[in-house]
């Protein structure tokens, strides 16, 4: 980084001490499609709306939920192209960790390294912050974990969280429904109900995506028909 002509940061402090570009990046996230995650006692579920600009778009070609390692998955709210960059960098970092230590990367470490990348883009010359917030779901020796990473590079571990357009309603809904003893199946149902709350139009297996990871430690994106099954149970 540090593009030659722009050896100065574009993200600078305002007189009131705010980093305005980061705030604008958060606004970009807040106008993105809703996504959420729930940590259950025996796994994690992450889900997102998948509203496509036209029926002409082939929904099979679009997958918003991505696998970073076999036991870590991620979903985003905000600018899709920016998320692709972060997914690629995270995957590489995970592989480099494995090459060095011959062990799969712990979830916290991967989250930290991804967050570091995001922070660098708020300070380096000639670049803008990422316009995405990420929800990272993983299962390692410490058990199931859910992290949210923001454009500023700050990250927190969550029991349940939501991002995007419908964030406040979704979070209120989650606060009411969340219990620590929840099992993965219940968590998936709760996730679907939360998405349904703010969903404009008819919810179906084709316009939402759900990713789960259980004690088998394998992150899996559910197929549209599996999502449909859960939707029917939730009726």
């Amino acid at each position, binding site marked *: 980084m540090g*593009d030659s002509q722009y050896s100065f940061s574009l*993200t600078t402090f305002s007189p009131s001490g*705010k980093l305005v570009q980061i705030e604008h990046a958060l606004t970009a996230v807040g106008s993105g499609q809703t996504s959420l995650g729930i940590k259950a006692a025996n796994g994690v579920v992450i889900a997102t709306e998948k509203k*496509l600009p036209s029926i002409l778009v082939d929904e099979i070609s679009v997958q918003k939920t991505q696998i970073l390692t076999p036991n870590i998955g991620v979903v985003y709210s905000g600018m899709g192209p920016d998320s692709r960059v972060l997914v690629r960098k995270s995957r590489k970092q995970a592989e480099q960790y494995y090459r060095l230590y011959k062990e799969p990367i712990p979830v916290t470490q991967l989250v930290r390294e991804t967050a570091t990348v995001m922070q660098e883009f708020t300070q380096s010359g000639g670049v803008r912050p*990422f316009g995405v917030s990420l929800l990272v779901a993983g299962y390692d020796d410490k058990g199931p974990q859910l992290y949210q990473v923001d454009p500023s590079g700050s990250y927190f571990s969550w029991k349940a969280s939501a991002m995007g357009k419908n964030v406040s309603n979704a979070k209120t809904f989650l606060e009411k429904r969340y219990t620590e003893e929840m099992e993965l199946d219940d968590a998936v149902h709760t996730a679907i109900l939360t998405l349904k709350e703010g969903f404009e139009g008819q919810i179906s297996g084709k316009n939402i995506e759900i990713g789960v990871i259980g004690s088998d430690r394998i992150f899996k994106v559910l197929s549209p028909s599996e999502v449909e099954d859960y939707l029917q149970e939730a009726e």
Partner: protein
Amino acid sequence: MSRGSGGGYDRHITIFSPEGRLYQVEYAFKAVKAAGVTSIGVRGKDSVCVVTQKKVPDKLLDQTSVTLLFPITKYLGLLATGITADARTLVQQARNEAAEFRFRYGYEMPVDVLARWIADKSQVYTQHAYMRPLGVVAMILGIDEEKGPQLFKCDPAGHFFGHKATSAGGKEQEAINFLEKKMKNDPEFTYEETVQTAISALQSVLQEDFKASEIEVGVVRKEDQIFKVLSTDEIDEHLTAISERD
């Protein structure tokens, strides 16, 4: 008091505006529309067809050198809509990348991999201040070994999607409305139907009947997988078939 809009530079380089938007990217989209050309792409059961207007602004120009339809490899085609100069840069880089892919990995670059590469490059321009986004929407077509005919569209924001049919340029929205009606029940078009749907969509949206020399048509078919630019005679056959059908 805070210098909310970054001193007004949010319109000059790709930094965020207070509403969380990237003005430079939005202006790049406008540049695509302002080029005044509309393009259409349609995916059929075993073929893909793209069509664009051929506007030759000066009679003294050599018509054969005016083109927005480029072969990237023998099997992949790219239709650019927008600023011609930006399109040529993109095509040059795409050709290089596809050739290196073939050399490095020993098999032809698949359609979606090329589309993703172009989209990722476009994303870099939206995040780094030193380069502006390209004023081009690119439609990539080819036959995928496993998935069959594929049509991808990449835009200045770095988005890319696979499409059953799509459009770009001045009359993009009208064309998409037209195509949504035609593709509503997931019809499986034959090669002739694919080409004729694409051409008649363009004619309907621009409300004029074309001569073969006024449009460019590119196709790729499952039977031979090779990307071909149709000759004026071949285009004429399709135009005649359309007018007889109507």
